[in-house]
């Protein structure tokens, strides 16, 4: 069957049933199966009906998923591996961290994200988030993460708004909670929040009615970064479990390291952390990782080398004597990389400090470095996260939908 509308109509029990479900005349439903030049929709169900139809179908015990609306459509083949959106598989209102997520929930997000990669590459937009408003609330400078979230929201049809709040102005006046209450009164559906203090996003999430996605809080967690790293690894290697991953550099100040440790250990990878003792936090071995202070040893036979940026802005006092010395012992160059498996992938959450933690030639090695791929996966993963949390929200108010 190459006609998604017919497929959906059949699945829902005929045109009359579908008409009743969405509240339109059956003749309009028939028209979905006509070609465009005859006043039809070319075999597509108009996107404005998707959500209502899914809801109504669910109420009647019919399993209808967004993929059904693309079923058999030649122009946008649904990714074979991607499972249908299923709120039951991701029952969280917020995504505040990786800690606490199960392997199945992580797999679900990665599977959904995999499907969105194809959508992104096709330059098409879905409208799963049509009528939704998301606000990017950034208390810390960011270009890549904010842009990535914005693009993810737009590719799903959400209205996206960016707010940058310099921390200094927060110090002067409005507290974090007041900011949260102000935004809450504007009724957004999703808040994406980045904040320089650990736990701040968690605090904010307790005060708002919408879904909250952590875009990075202090040195605590950066869940979407870990998910995009995982997606990159999985697409390259086919699996995560059983791999040996070395996370190298400034572990102490890194939220990326913490989220990745949680994710990778949950998915069954072996995780090593490599860095000078001053940048490896106390008792990190209790999180299930092996600690190395010698980079050659730490990289030995590993499948993935994940480099971290030296977060100089979070360092008060000396942690490493100089960048030159740091690069000498902990910068990734071909000599050190030679200890890893020959096909080991090089990853970096960006922005890269060339010559500080990674040699330029290594960073640009198209055979080994997947740094730009990580950026691409970032958008897909954030689409999956946005979809997952909005699926657990109440539906948008009916007047947000254009009338039929």
């Amino acid at each position, binding site marked *: 069957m190459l006609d998604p509308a017919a497929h959906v109509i059949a699945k829902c029990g005929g045109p009359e049933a579908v008409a009743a479900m969405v509240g339109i005349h059956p003749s309009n439903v028939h028209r979905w199966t006509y070609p465009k030049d005859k006043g039809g929709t070319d075999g597509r169900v108009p996107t404005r009906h998707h959500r209502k139809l899914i809801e109504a179908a669910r109420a009647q015990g019919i399993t209808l998923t967004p993929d059904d609306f693309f079923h058999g459509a030649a122009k946008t083949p649904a990714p074979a591996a991607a499972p249908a959106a299923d709120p039951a598989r991701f029952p969280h209102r917020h995504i505040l961290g990786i*800690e606490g997520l199960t392997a199945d929930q992580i797999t679900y997000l990665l599977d959904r994200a995999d499907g969105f990669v194809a959508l992104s590459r096709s330059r098409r937009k879905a409208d799963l988030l049509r009528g939704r408003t998301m606000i990017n609330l950034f208390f810390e400078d960011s270009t890549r993460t904010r842009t990535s979230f914005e693009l993810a929201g737009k590719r799903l049809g959400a209205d996206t708004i960016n707010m940058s709040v310099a921390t200094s102005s927060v110090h002067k006046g409005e*507290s*974090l*909670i007041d900011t949260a209450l102000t935004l809450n009164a504007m009724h957004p559906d999703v808040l994406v929040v980045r*904040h320089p*203090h*650990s*736990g*701040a996003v*968690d*605090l904010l999430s307790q005060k708002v009615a919408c879904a909250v996605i952590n875009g990075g*809080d*202090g*040195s*605590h*967690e950066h869940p979407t970064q870990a998910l995009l790293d995982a997606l990159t690894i999985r697409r390259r290697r086919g699996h995560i479990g059983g791999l040996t991953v070395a996370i190298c550099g400034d572990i102490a100040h890194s*939220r990326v390291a*913490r989220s990745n440790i949680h994710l990778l250990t949950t998915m069954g990878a072996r995780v090593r952390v490599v860095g000078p003792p001053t940048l490896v*936090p*106390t*008792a*990190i071995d*209790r*999180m299930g990782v092996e600690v190395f202070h010698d980079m050659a040893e730490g990289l030995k036979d590993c499948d993935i080398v994940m480099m971290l940026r030296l977060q100089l802005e979070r360092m*008060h006092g000396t942690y490493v004597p100089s960048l030159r010395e740091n690069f000498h012992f902990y910068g990734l160059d071909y000599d050190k990389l030679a200890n890893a498996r020959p096909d080991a992938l090089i990853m970096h959450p960006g922005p890269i400090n060339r010559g500080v933690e990674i040699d330029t030639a290594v960073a640009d090695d198209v055979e080994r470095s997947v740094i730009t791929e990580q950026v691409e996966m970032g958008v897909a993963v954030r689409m999956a996260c946005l979809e997952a949390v909005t699926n657990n929200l109440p539906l948008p108010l009916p007047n947000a939908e254009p009338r039929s």
Partner: protein
Amino acid sequence: MTTRTAYINARLMDPSCNRDEIGALVVEDGRIADIGAGVLAGGAPDGMAVVDCGGHVLAPGLVDSRVLVHEPGETYKESVASAAAAAVSGGITTICTLPNTNPVIDDVSLVEFMIARGHDAGLVKLHPFAALTVGARGEKLTEMGLLREAGAIAFTDGTAAIADPVLMRRALAYATTWGALIIQHPEEPNLARGGQMNEGEIATRLGLQGIPPCAEVMMIERDLHLVALTGGRYHAAHVSTAAAIDAIRKAKGRGLDVTCDTAPHYFGLNETAIGEYRTFAKLSPPLRTEDDRRAVVEGLADGTIDIVASDHIPQDPDSKRLPYAQSIAGATGLETLLPLVLELYHNKALSLMAALRAVTCAPAARLGLDAGTLAKGAAADFTVIDTERPWRIREDHLLSKSRNTLFDGRPVQGCCLRTVIDGRTVFARED
């Protein structure tokens, strides 16, 4: 005309002389006129008011040796009046106040102000600590002699450590002139700088900068050397780590004039109370590991830790409803001091007598106060305690202006039924 009141049918418990007997206590003109098992055995004479204690414990009023009242300066968090009302409802008859107000209590007129405010409140007896350094900035000594004459009972920079070893040496030496007590907040500030909680697995998971536990023992060890050098009198406030307690245990063995106290948070909770960034559990020193908590209980049991103080640091919601790193440390404690100390008795860590000693005669003796005893002739400051009554701590039932208790919802056993100061009943539980 003298007024006499008899408190009969009481279990008289006086840790200052290890009295533990059923009997009666007679108050005359605000002082204890008589006490003992045989007192009023033949019944109270006509005209004497009689209070039947119902067999409950009658103990000296509690002496809380570490209270921040926030007056002057931040009376929206707490005032002398509100702290006094909270204190007496918890069986406390004497409080010693920290100098970390705005302005800092570092001047004779400010010490006099604090004492006057205590009188005005007319409830609990207030004894101010004076700052050891001007502005509690740790740079220049205050006028210790004059402050002492004005009524300051000991010297401390309160919530700030005396970091400079030369200054600490001079302070200890100078204070020996009057035998004045120096109280330290034992934390090496450079090592602790930027720290938010106890260093370890939980801090690492939460992405919060840790304070290594050795920051406490380092400062205490340094001070102990200076005490040996100067012959000074030294008290380490709110000790929280096993190593620090061990250092003090050894110093006492060497005969140094050293004491220490702890607060209920440090034997009632450990760092897991922080959970997911619970700012009410942000304290200075931070909550420690379970091993340290047990060491605090052991230190109390073997007498290394002399005193339990509430470490009452009230904070308003705006100081606590912040990201963890930005929130201000401290927790209230006046009203929960008694039940949490009694928890040590109910858990069989301490005898009832030892538990009461740590909050009555031990702090009174160390600070040289006329309090903490039921001796004949002493001020009639005492409390009647039902040691068994179960209840649940509720933040919205607290009388302190601030509600930042760490123990909200905790089931406890034992409460104050009546508090008497100078023979006057200042609190009586109605239910």
